[in-house]
């Protein structure tokens, strides 16, 4: 045996094992996989159809209005300029693709959070669960995102479901992590107060821990949305539609015009969603309560 080579190690066919697991699932979980396919396709198509049913200019006004309400007129102005820019650029179907990406992001982010919040709560309330969940989340987030496309392609071949599932898996970890962190950060005296007045665990979670963790959970939602958006573009590779398609078209045809215009549209969507969701965090009751208010000074 020599220290200069590793011939003495047995061969571990890790990839093959994964392959076997995926094949087994494909053979045996068919009905479940079909249900997931149907549900995600219906959701995504429905939302995409709705977003594209609204006339583009009206959509710009709606999104800008939402931005103004949440953040202020300056952000609303940015939204108008950015979204009109998408419509003004000549690449074919850029606006409908943007709306499709928007739908993909929303569906993926909502499902990711629906899964992430209970897992995060479990991790926050149970040390053992936390120790198990943490490395799994690390794995999910650091595994190169493209890898998720492979088993999803096995299950659902090309289409939006493949992109959505890969996106959900990739984007979920910060949602779990920040939910756990937010709940763990809640002042233990508050939780103790709940116990001291005889509140059951669930009521403490719902009425005290979760609302107080809300600003951190919102930061998690923001992260999930941003990761979803980055993944949605990658998902364009497997025919999920959206802005990923013109981007890959641009790459494969070495067409800088299409690629840069599609890329710019992604940037506009990213900035809009990021600023919008980070402002939602500031609007939560706890964040409002922690800000000094002028009214207090007037009545004191």
């Amino acid at each position, binding site marked *: 045996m020599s220290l200069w080579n590793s011939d003495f190690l047995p061969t571990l066919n890790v990839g093959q094992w994964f392959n076997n697991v995926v094949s087994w699932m494909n053979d045996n979980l068919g009905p479940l996989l079909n249900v997931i396919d149907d549900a995600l396709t219906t959701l995504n198509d429905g939302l995409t159809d709705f977003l594209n049913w609204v006339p583009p200019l009206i959509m710009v006004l709606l999104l800008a209005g939402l931005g103004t309400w949440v953040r202020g007129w300056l952000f609303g102005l940015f939204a108008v300029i950015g979204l009109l820019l998408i419509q003004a650029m000549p690449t074919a179907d850029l606006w409908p693709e943007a709306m499709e990406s928007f739908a993909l992001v929303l569906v993926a982010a909502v499902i990711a959070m629906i899964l992430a919040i209970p897992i995060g709560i479990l991790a926050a309330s149970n040390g053992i669960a936390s120790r198990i969940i943490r490395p799994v989340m690390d794995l999910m987030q650091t595994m190169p995102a493209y890898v998720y496309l492979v088993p999803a392609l096995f299950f659902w071949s090309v289409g939006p479901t493949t992109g959505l599932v890969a996106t959900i898996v990739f984007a979920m970890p910060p949602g779990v992590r920040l939910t756990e962190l937010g709940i763990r950060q809640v*002042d233990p*005296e*508050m939780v*103790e*107060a709940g*116990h*001291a*007045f*005889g*509140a*059951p665990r669930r*009521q403490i979670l719902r*009425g*005290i821990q979760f*609302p*107080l963790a809300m600003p951190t959970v919102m930061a998690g939602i923001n992260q999930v949305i941003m990761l979803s958006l980055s993944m949605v573009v990658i998902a364009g590779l497997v025919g999920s539609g959206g802005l990923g398609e013109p981007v890959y078209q641009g790459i494969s045809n070495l067409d800088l015009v299409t690629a840069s215009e599609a890329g710019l549209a992604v940037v506009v969507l990213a900035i809009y969603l990021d600023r919008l969701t980070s402002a939602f965090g500031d609007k*939560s*009751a*706890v964040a*409002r*309560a*922690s800000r*000094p*208010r002028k*009214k*207090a000074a007037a*009545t*004191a």
Partner: protein
Amino acid sequence: MPAIKAEGIYKVFGRNAERGVARLHNGDSRETLRADGLTAAVIDASFQVDDGEIFVVMGLSGSGKSTLIRTVNGLLEPTAGSMQVHGQDITTLSPKALRAVRRDRISMVFQHFALFPHRTVGENAAYGLKVRGLNRSDRMAKADEALRMVGLDKWAGSLPGELSGGMRQRVGLARALAAGTDILLMDEAFSALDPLIRREMRDQLIDLQQQLGKTILFITHDLNEAMQLGDRIAMMRDGRIVQIGTAEEILNDPANDYVASFVQDVDRARVLTAESVMEPPAVLLGADQGPRMAHKLMRENQVSQLFVVSRDRVLRGVVTEDDVAAAVQHGQSDLAGLIRTDIPTVTEGTALADLFGESAESRGALPVLGERDRLVGVIPRVTLLNALSTKGSEQEVTQ
């Protein structure tokens, strides 16, 4: 039946905590346990709190007082011992039954208030009632009532963040009062407040307790606070209760050197009352006796004035040397016109600090009146000054 009765409460933290209790029983010290990773926070604590009493547990940080108070409502389960609340041993209860005890019997006020920042003052005050399942309008009405008791009813719609520290803790108090439980646990409730506010809060707590007759278990590290609030005080050190008694018992008869060194710095003037320093009157004059008798008693006892009492010892007033001498010269046979009634008097419960003003106004000793104005004792000025010097400082002088 006492409101709270603790018997042999132990709380040991760490793996195999029961073994730690057995070792403490066998005489092992806290330190040897710590070497094995066991922390004995409370050791063999027994006490009882009567209905309507303010019972103070006083100790420095690390003495185990906060752990002890948490065993009373089961936030911490004692490792050994029994904790009875109105005769019910809560250490044997199911989690659900324990929650019911906390909901209906015991509420708590926290050192750092523990108000929910995202709820209004009114909603905070109503929290205990919400847990009980009262509908919103009922619980808000009761919360308003509790807020009125602490003088904050105008703030019901504000958020806790808009209130000062003292006001926030009054909300904490209102939350505990609104819950309508007969026992209040107060964990260092005033320690985070400014000294002036703290005093105000103490006075308010005493007022409320007298109005409502709550049983209060109060934790503090401030001996002055303990002495002012506590009907009785338990002194804790290193997890053990070293003495239980009234403020005066602890001041005048400390159980060991530790307690003695503690009480040395206490503001005795605020804690001691007239009753604890008064002396039996050396001589009294009966209301039906005459000036000659008065003159004789004054000469024999070397005093310049005499208290005049009726047969059932009700204080009638005082006669002075000059008046008595004049009356004797004029051959007057009774005390008519001689008794001065405009003299300062104090009662048994008057704090020493309040005696000085009265003492300054009076020429001789201060009369102390008990029930139905009966004279129960007197406080000569010298006694008053002596009472303020502690045993500790006397030792310093003799050294």
